[in-house]
């Protein structure tokens, strides 16, 4: 098997995915380490349903995003072989060289997302265009021979899928003997199309879905990784036969379409008729996902600022992969439901009522332990405090009310956030960020109105011109009207009132403009000096002058927005019971998603307790325990050495550590001769270290090894 790795080493190859007994085993895993049994079941069910919901939602969003691209591609395919079906005998058609229609599909550098795109693409094509689709990957095609084998295998298989299963055996036998050449492909195509033509009317539906002679679509998933020779040969070969069967190529390109020209020489690229298709940029993609999944009240689970930051950072710094982002979000869901016993309350409000009522005493204690709840209790009067801390029923009542509060908070939060974003996203230099996710993070982090950025953006908002301000207000009204929040009628009224006032102002201005205009006519004829003077005067007058009506109104609008922000955009961790709904252990997430193999290896070897969890290994500071595995002892000893390590000294030290606990009697016996067993153990430890890449034999001194890491080299 091959890997994508650049270095040599051991690789784990997972066996091909088999059908697992899904729910049973995962549920068991989930229950592990949880004391409360019935609750954990409920939690697991909630978690599963939420996962499913998120999955279907994101898939739907992605489908919508890709729709345009796929439509274009389908129409391209439709166009590409229209001539093949008509069999025109026109002069130009005869004279032109037959080029292979090729779609260059630029998908961006987020390679991990491409799989999904290609899967849905081939689904779309299968449904609308052609049953004959082959997906090729570079790692399967090191040579033209392998490529042809793969291609023929996939095409002839897909033909079986469409057909009844009785022919399957026959096909499977013959595939091994089929010659991997273009001629056999053409023969197959002819027979396949003939067969669909002569099918019984009952089967006709397949052919009505596709066209008369459906094109054969060959998709190169990762064009960059294919070797030049394979691609060239394939294009040359298939161009020889393009007259005989309709072939269409789709190149999946991660970087830029220029790659085609650098991979294929002109003599080969002149055989292709390349059209470019570009998918949505992955950043836009992410914004849509965040907008539709995270910034809604649709899902009960929310992410705290730190967690969201971790996910976004991984996206921006490392992989640009939307799929990974979604997987991260799903991990958050699992982690939240797994680690937080109170997460049973993290569900839709309707269900929550019943769940609050059926909380066990233990769970009530858990609620009382929440820091946000404690803060809430402290703010109450003393009788209420006692009731909350002692009586479960009053606690449940309070929890239910608080949950409702939290829900209302969210319902108000997101529309107001969007409104604020309308304002901040059009300010110069974007003091609060260009994207709504940045604004969201800022609001979650702490009171946004206390930050400098907010202050400066308000300053800037006070300088907006009228037309911008009016369009923004209109947008805000749209957002608020379309949102389900209950308290927005009043706000909408107020905003509309502002709009009418602006309207009135405009009318008033027009009247005044007419009166002023003759004066302006005069000014136009002045020279530069005079102009400067008048401008200076104007400036002076403005400074001393009272604010115009428009400016007053503008101040009013900005102040009103400010008040909205202060009222509704309170950070979530100021809210009581936010722990139930917000997942906020960012460190766990980081550990899972941004693994650090070197560090993990170092901890494993340096502090075996952290992984083995054996009480005997609990280390007491810097000393080397002899109960640790041999490799750990050898590793710790080697950390103390320089670039070159003397094997004899190392062995000596090793045996000292190993025999240390055996007491003075053993010490006397083993004068200077090292025990054979210890020697063997040492050799094994050293060779394990060599395998892990910490040391290597040195050529300078035969009885030394060289360190390769941390202070070595």
């Amino acid at each position: 098997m091959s890997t994508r790795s650049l270095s040599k080493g051991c690789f784990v190859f997972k066996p091909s995915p088999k059908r697992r007994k899904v729910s049973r085993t995962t549920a068991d895993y989930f229950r592990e380490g949880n004391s409360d049994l019935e609750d954990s079941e409920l939690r697991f069910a909630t978690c599963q349903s939420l996962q499913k919901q998120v999955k279907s939602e994101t898939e739907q969003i992605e489908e919508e995003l890709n729709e345009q691209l796929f439509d274009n591609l389908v129409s391209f395919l439709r166009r590409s072989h229209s001539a093949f079906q008509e069999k025109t005998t026109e002069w130009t058609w005869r004279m032109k060289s037959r080029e292979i229609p090729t779609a260059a599909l630029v998908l961006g550098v987020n390679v991990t997302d491409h799989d999904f795109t290609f899967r849905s693409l081939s689904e779309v094509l299968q449904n609308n265009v052609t049953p004959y689709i082959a997906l090729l990957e570079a790692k399967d095609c090191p040579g033209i021979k392998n490529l042809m084998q793969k291609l023929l295998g996939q095409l002839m298989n897909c033909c079986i899928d469409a057909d009844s299963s009785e022919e399957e055996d026959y096909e499977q036998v013959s595939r091994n003997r089929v010659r991997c050449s273009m001629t056999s492909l053409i023969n197959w195509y002819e027979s396949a199309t003939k067969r669909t033509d002569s099918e019984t009317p009952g089967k006709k539906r397949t052919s009505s879905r596709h066209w008369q002679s459906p094109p054969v679509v060959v998709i190169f998933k990762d064009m960059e990784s294919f070797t030049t020779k394979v691609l060239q040969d394939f294009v040359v070969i298939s161009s020889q036969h393009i007259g005989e069967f309709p072939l269409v190529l789709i190149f999946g390109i991660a970087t830029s379409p220029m790659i085609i020209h650098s991979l294929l020489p002109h003599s080969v690229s002149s055989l292709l008729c390349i059209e470019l298709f570009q998918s949505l940029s992955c950043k836009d993609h992410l914004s849509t996902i965040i907008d539709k999944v995270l910034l809604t009240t649709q899902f009960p689970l929310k992410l705290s600022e730190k967690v969201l930051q971790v996910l976004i950072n991984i996206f921006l710094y490392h992989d640009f992969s939307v799929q990974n982002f979604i997987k991260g979000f799903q991990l958050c869901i699992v982690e939240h439901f797994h680690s937080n016993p109170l997460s049973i309350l993290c569900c839709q409000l309707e269900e929550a009522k019943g769940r609050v009522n059926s909380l066990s005493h233990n769970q009530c204690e858990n609620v009382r332990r929440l820091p946000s709840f404690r803060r809430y209790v402290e703010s109450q009067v003393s009788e209420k405090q006692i009731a909350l801390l002692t009586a479960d029923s009053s606690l449940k009542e309070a929890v239910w009310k608080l949950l409702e509060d939290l829900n209302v908070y969210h319902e108000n939060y997101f529309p107001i956030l969007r409104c604020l974003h309308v304002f901040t996203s059009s300010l110069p230099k974007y003091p609060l960020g260009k994207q709504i996710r940045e604004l969201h993070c800022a609001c979650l982090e702490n009171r946004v109105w206390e930050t400098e950025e907010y202050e400066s953006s308000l300053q800037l908002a006070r300088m907006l011109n009228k037309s911008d301000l009016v369009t923004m207000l209109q947008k805000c009204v749209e957002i608020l009207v379309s949102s389900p929040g209950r308290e927005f009628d009043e706000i909408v009224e107020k905003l509309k009132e502002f709009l009418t006032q602006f309207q009135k102002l405009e009318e008033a201005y027009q009247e005044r403009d007419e009166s002023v205009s003759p004066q302006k006519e005069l000014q136009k004829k002045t020279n530069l000096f005079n102009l400067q003077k008048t401008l200076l005067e104007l400036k002076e007058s403005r400074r001393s002058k009272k604010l115009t009506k428009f400016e007053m109104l503008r101040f009013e609008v900005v102040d009103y927005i400010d008040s909205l922000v202060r009222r509704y955009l309170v950070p979530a961790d100021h809210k009581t019971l936010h722990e139930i709904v917000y997942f906020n252990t960012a460190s766990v997430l980081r550990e899972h998603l941004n693994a650090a193999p070197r560090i993990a290896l170092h901890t494993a070897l340096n502090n075996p307790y952290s992984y083995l969890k054996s009480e005997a290994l609990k280390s007491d500071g810097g000393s080397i325990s002899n109960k640790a595995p041999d490799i750990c002892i050898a590793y710790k000893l080697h950390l103390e050495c320089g670039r070159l390590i003397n094997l004899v000294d190392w062995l000596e030290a090793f045996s000292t550590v190993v025999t240390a606990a055996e007491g003075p009697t053993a010490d006397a016996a083993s004068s200077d001769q090292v025990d054979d067993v210890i020697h063997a153990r040492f050799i094994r430890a050293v060779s394990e270290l060599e395998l892990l890449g910490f040391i290597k034999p040195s050529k300078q001194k035969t009885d030394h090894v060289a360190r390769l890491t941390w202070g070595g080299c």
Partner: protein
Amino acid sequence: MPILEHPAYPPATLLCLESLVPCRESQVSMLLSIFGERQQLSFPSIFIYGHTSSGKTYVMKTLLNTLQLPHVFVNCVECFTSRLLLEEILIQLHNGSSETKQASPVPCDTFNDFVRLFKQALTSQNLQDQTVYVVLDRAEQLREMEANVLPAFLRLQELTDRNVTVILLSEIVWEMFRPNTGCFEPFILYFPDYSIGHLQKILSQNHPPEYSADFYSAYINILLGVFYMVCRDLKELQHLAALNFSKYCEPVVRREAKERDTRKLWKNIEPHLKKAMQTVYLREISSSQWERLQCEEEEPGQIKGLSAHAHVELPYYSKFLLIAAYLASYNPARTDKRFFLKHHGKIKKTNFMKKHEKTSNHLLGPKPFPLDRLLAILYSIVDNRVAPTANIFSQVSQVHMYLLLFPVYCLWNF
């Protein structure tokens, strides 16, 4: 006065052949004289070479088809293994005269089998008394197959003891073929490039039925005037001619100019052709897009060429990885300490650069570097602390995957 004369073939066929292979009469007559009559033994192997689209394949095909000589025509690129090649020859031989298609080909793994089966096939098809021609197109691929294939094909006549001639077609000279161990020297024939006159003559031959030959030939003249400097490929020129002809005819169709109005037509078509040279010819936009543009009279700016999309967006650390790779490949490793450490100690200015390093490193090209060094430089050039996480490592391999884009950095030291 016909140029092709041969006693063995009827003059009418020869005349027809002559009309089909313009500007290649001398080569054809040479081949005819080598071939001799049907039953005569011909030269065992002939090697024909010439530049791209100098008519090698076309001439051989028309020659063999018009004279109805028994032949096998195989493209060596298509048959990428020797087994496929040999089997293909046998299949064609079987299908050549009798129409009964053989269902499953006989497996033929070695050349020994091939010789045996070849003899059988000749006997079964009653071809013993005629010369059989085996034409191997793109013969340069033969060099990549087993070492015995090329020499054996060159001596096929001797090995099979039958009347057979192997013709190799290639774009490269024979000297590049000759194996180290030596082999039978084929007869070498060169097809020279078509001159501009030849191109004019050949291209004008196929004029569209709606227009006169003179009109089309004037168009070809203009076309060659623009494209001859950059492209002498006959196929490509023909393609371009067909693509742009409708535009040329436009004034005539709209009755703004007559067919004789060469100057007006030239004025109309010339800028168009120049644009075509920059776009379609370079495959910046595809020919179908070009045709649509012509129909819709749009500005070509509407469809951007492939090279307009050269911008690639990379994740933050990938960008730094590329920068680090660039630094590592152009700076000598000795200088790393100086460039990337804060307290690097004193460096004597005079001998710092060795003499051979004074020449610009960019002239020498990038140098290989170990992965460790790349990562070390990465950690020092990124502002904040970078943890050596798995994501970073996987980015290295991803960048390596894209690196076809930046082939200069692609010199990894593994």
